[in-house]
């Protein structure tokens, strides 16, 4: 695991959408933000490029403060923030038409209907999306004449999401877009994020759901204590540090030294308890084939063979010593 200060994006990752060449959509350098005596953001560096960037961290890590500084809501106490090359506070008039914002909650007149509010936000833009198509796409058609305060939590979230994209922005900020949603609604939101990405819209999303980051993000920045403690593609982050693990059961007392010779140099192998074997290394189809063919040569039937992939959850735990949703 590399600890990146300042972070470098995408090194060695699979090429995606030419993002290596693209200009950063967000550049945060040495950002500090305090509320009274509490330091919410403490010298944070973050570079986000085209595609989907997940800002991952536990509650109180500084995610929302960082994103809201990018949106122009907060002035940095020190450090610099550039979004699409612009200063979010001084150049707000230029920046705001180009970004879409989904707040963590609220943002709608309590007496407004969903379609009314969405049409209103659309009218503030020069080339908005077709509102009816968007309502259809997000399943908001059933809201009818219901006012905002009487919509379900899921409907309110989807309306906020629709309001963030209706102006056809280049960059969308989603602050915990699936918090509190049921699984089906979550998938709907994920599909929309994937569609945005496919159509060339960049997305910065904060989340404390690991699977969300793994599913959606080209790039993940892990935040803790107001700093970015690691950044990279999900694959890079999961590959580093503790290696992936392959386990199998066989008869006790196999010649582990012989197995080790058959494996690539950077692997290790051990008999943990009699008959229970563990191989640690870069687990790929080739390694699996090597292990099973060594077993075949030695007349061993590997049982309960399993591959454990390192998840972002493990990475987070290793980096911070904390559960993400603690």
């Amino acid at each position, binding site marked *: 695991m590399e600890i990146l200060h300042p972070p470098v994006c995408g090194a060695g990752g699979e090429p995606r959408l030419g993002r290596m060449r693209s200009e950063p959509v967000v550049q945060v350098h040495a950002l500090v933000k305090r509320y009274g005596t509490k330091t919410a953001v403490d010298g944070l560096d973050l570079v986000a490029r085209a595609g989907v960037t997940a800002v991952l961290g536990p509650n109180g890590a500084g995610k929302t403060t960082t994103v809201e500084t990018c949106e122009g809501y907060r002035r940095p106490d020190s450090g610099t923030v550039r979004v699409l090359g612009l200063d979010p506070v001084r150049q707000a008039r230029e920046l705001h038409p180009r970004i879409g914002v989904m707040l963590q909650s609220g943002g*709608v007149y309590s007496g407004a209907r969903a379609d009314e509010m969405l049409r209103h936000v659309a009218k503030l833009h020069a080339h908005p999306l077709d509102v009816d198509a968007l309502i259809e796409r997000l399943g908001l058609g059933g809201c009818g004449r219901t006012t905002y305060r009487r919509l379900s939590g899921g409907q309110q979230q989807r309306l906020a999401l629709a309001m963030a994209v209706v102006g056809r922005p280049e960059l969308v900020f989603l602050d915990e877009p699936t918090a509190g949603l049921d699984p089906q609604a979550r998938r709907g939101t994920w*599909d929309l994020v994937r569609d945005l990405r496919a159509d060339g819209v960049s997305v910065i999303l904060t989340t404390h759901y690991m699977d969300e980051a793994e599913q959606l993000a080209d790039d993940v920045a892990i935040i803790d204590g107001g700093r970015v403690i690691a950044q990279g593609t999900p694959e890079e982050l999961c590959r580093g540090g503790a290696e992936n693990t392959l386990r199998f059961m066989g008869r006790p007392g196999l010649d582990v030294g012989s197995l080790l010779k058959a494996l690539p140099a950077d692997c290790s192998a051990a008999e943990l308890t009699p008959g229970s074997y563990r191989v640690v290394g870069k687990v790929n189809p080739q390694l699996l084939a090597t292990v099973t063919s060594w077993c075949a040569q030695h007349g061993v039937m590997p049982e309960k063979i399993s591959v454990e992939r390192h998840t972002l959850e493990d990475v987070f735990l290793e980096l911070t010593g904390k559960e993400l949703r603690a």
Partner: protein
Amino acid sequence: MTATGMYTPKPGAAPLGRMIATQAVLETKMLLRNGEQLLLTVVIPTLVLVLFSSVDIIDTDEGKAVDFLTPGVLALAVMSTAFTGQAIATGFERRYGVLKRLASSPLPRWGLMTAKTASVLVTEFLQVILLTVIAFALGWSPHGNPLSVLLLLILGTAAFSGLGLLMAGTLKAEATLAAANLVFLLLLVGGAVMVPLSKFPSGAQDVLGLLPITALSDGLRDVLQHGAGVPWGDLGILAVWAVAGLALAGRFFRWE
């Protein structure tokens, strides 16, 4: 995941005039849809006018009751919309993140404030139409220069808007709700709306005379009931309140 082209970026702000107009229309719709707001802006002024014109409860000095009451009720209408209604609505918009969300939209903040003002003026226009129609039906016979009336209404709106926004932008939404209603009630009674200032002790009169509601009621009454020219004194009081209120609101208003 396939590129549909549906979301292909094509950003841009709508023309400024269109943004402000659409915002003003929405603000007005929200206000007219809100039952509590209609109670303040329509029902109470109408009741005061109808009830106290037809039933001889209060001593309105010389002349017909409706001639005394209508200027006061017009002042009350301005206060209910520009101060009470605007303070409560804006307080809750702030609380529910509406102001915050709009602050990152292409509409600039001053554009939002302009739209709010336009919405207040449209609502007041509707109130004045309604109340004058009712007053005429009750036998009202106004005097004076309409331009003086317009000037008083506009300065009164500015004064009450400044105070309403100052309250909405600094207090919690619930505190704004309570305080704005309390102030409405106190000024309704003590601000020469339906009780002549001469009924109060002379020491109280001096203080009450400096309130924006008193200046607006008395100014309108001087013109509409007594046919006075330009009530400079009352306009001056309103101008001071307007400048102070708007300046303080501009300085201390918090958007979230």
